[in-house]
């Protein structure tokens, strides 16, 4: 990874090292900052900060220590007026021997709109960076909702890649469909959204009518449900891949 030192000795970070993504819905607006500072030899004690500056407002978000050279954080920016046109500045700070806070590395830029991956408050599927999982990604259920954990070292690349979209991966959809059918403790509002989503994209309504939250299923009917879930997830993924317009309508 290259290092851009400007004339003052500060490292000017580039888009492949720090990126800003804007995720908007009717009710929410969030900026997702992702960083990969490997190879820059920045001190672990350095502090990370995000600053959002619009014509009318400036907000500062303290991220914390540089514990991990690769990471991501999401911040609520809805209250910033004109947030869509705001400039975002990511800084790595460390005080010198006299306590003067020095900017060791810096990146300033606009946030790009992230499509397809939304945020926890509003979206169907939350994603997050996870340094503990061994595989590239994994759907976990937490607090009654599915979350897509992505390995930390892949998180930024995957979310910024136009080729990766968690909603068109059949295995992701299958795991979510399982959660929807089998799990008793779930966020009902989110579950309703997911059910509407699956039905809108071709899953037979009777899968839910017959199997959802039904404690009296026989072994044979469980096998049927498993088959329907698997094939249903595949169909939905195919439908989403080939019908982008419909999907956008649903997301709006």
């Amino acid at each position: 990874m290259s290092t851009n030192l400007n004339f003052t000795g500060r490292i000017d970070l580039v888009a492949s090292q720090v990126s800003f993504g804007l995720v908007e819905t009717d009710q929410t607006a969030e900026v997702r900052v992702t960083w990969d500072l490997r190879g820059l030899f920045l001190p672990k004690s350095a502090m990370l900060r995000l600053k959002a500056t619009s014509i009318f407002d400036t907000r500062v978000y303290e991220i914390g220590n540089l514990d991990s050279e690769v990471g991501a954080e999401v911040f609520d920016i809805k209250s910033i007026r004109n947030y869509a046109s705001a400039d975002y500045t990511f800084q790595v700070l460390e005080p010198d021997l006299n306590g003067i806070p020095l900017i060791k590395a810096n990146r300033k830029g606009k946030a790009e709109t992230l499509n397809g991956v939304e945020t926890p408050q509003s979206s169907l599927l939350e994603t997050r960076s996870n340094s503990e999982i061994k595989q590239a990604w994994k759907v976990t259920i937490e607090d009654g909702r599915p979350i897509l954990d992505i390995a930390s070292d892949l998180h930024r690349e995957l979310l910024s890649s136009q080729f990766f979209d968690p909603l068109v991966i059949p295995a992701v959809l299958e795991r979510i469909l399982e959660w929807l059918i089998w799990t008793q403790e779930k966020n009902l509002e989110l579950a309703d959204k997911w059910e509407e989503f699956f039905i809108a994209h071709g899953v037979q309504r009777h899968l839910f009518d017959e199997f959802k939250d039904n404690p009296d299923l026989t072994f044979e009917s469980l096998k049927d449900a498993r088959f329907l879930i698997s094939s249903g997830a595949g169909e939905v993924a195919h439908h989403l891949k080939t019908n982008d317009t419909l999907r956008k309508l649903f997301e709006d």
Partner: protein
Amino acid sequence: MKYKINLRSFNDSGRSEFEQILLSGSKSIFAELDALASDKRKSAEIPAVFEWDSKERSRLDLGGALHASFTTNDATLKFADDPNVWNWLACLLFKEIHKQDLNLVPKIKGDAPRWLVRENTIRGHRHLVLGSYTSYKNNVDDLGAANCILHQDIFEPGELVERIAGKSSLSVMPVVQVATWLYIDPRKNLPYAGITSTGTPQQLSKYLNQIEKNVDYQSMKPKELLELLPPAFKRWQSMAKKNNRLV
């Protein structure tokens, strides 16, 4: 004159006519602008009431009155982003700003930033009405610290407003506090004589613009930032410490 009036926002026609009158150099500019401000076909009412006594002419007074108007409730704040609210206000207050003296009205040309707000303007601080509001709003938690950009008459903002209020990172703490200590005589509430000779507000602005590449001066305490200034500011530093009892 005491104002208690619902604020309005120009429509395109009102905004266009305002610019034409400003640039016309008309001898009856006060009357024409008064008529335009009260023409209900050229503007729409917004749900914010403006109360101001024109005898209270400092940027602090006007900024405070406007801040009160826009912070009545959550719904009113968004109107502060509307350039045509500021254009209507400049039209309404034009005569008062110029002390009802036609001789004080300069020849207005170009984009007229002291009276006209355009979309995405970067010179909003020069607008005689919006600039007062912004300086007040940005420092509402400690107005005394921002005295360097609030004590002036609305008609004559001067060098400190141009240099300190002109950039968002300078127009807030800790820089406003340092500039107030450096350049405002606390006994007179006026700038010291000679602030445009050496260690000037412009030099302060340039110095901070230089170090901002490497130094996060915005997170420093005002006293720490005061100590960081180079020798060119020594005279003002000494007076700041002595007259504000900072030692």
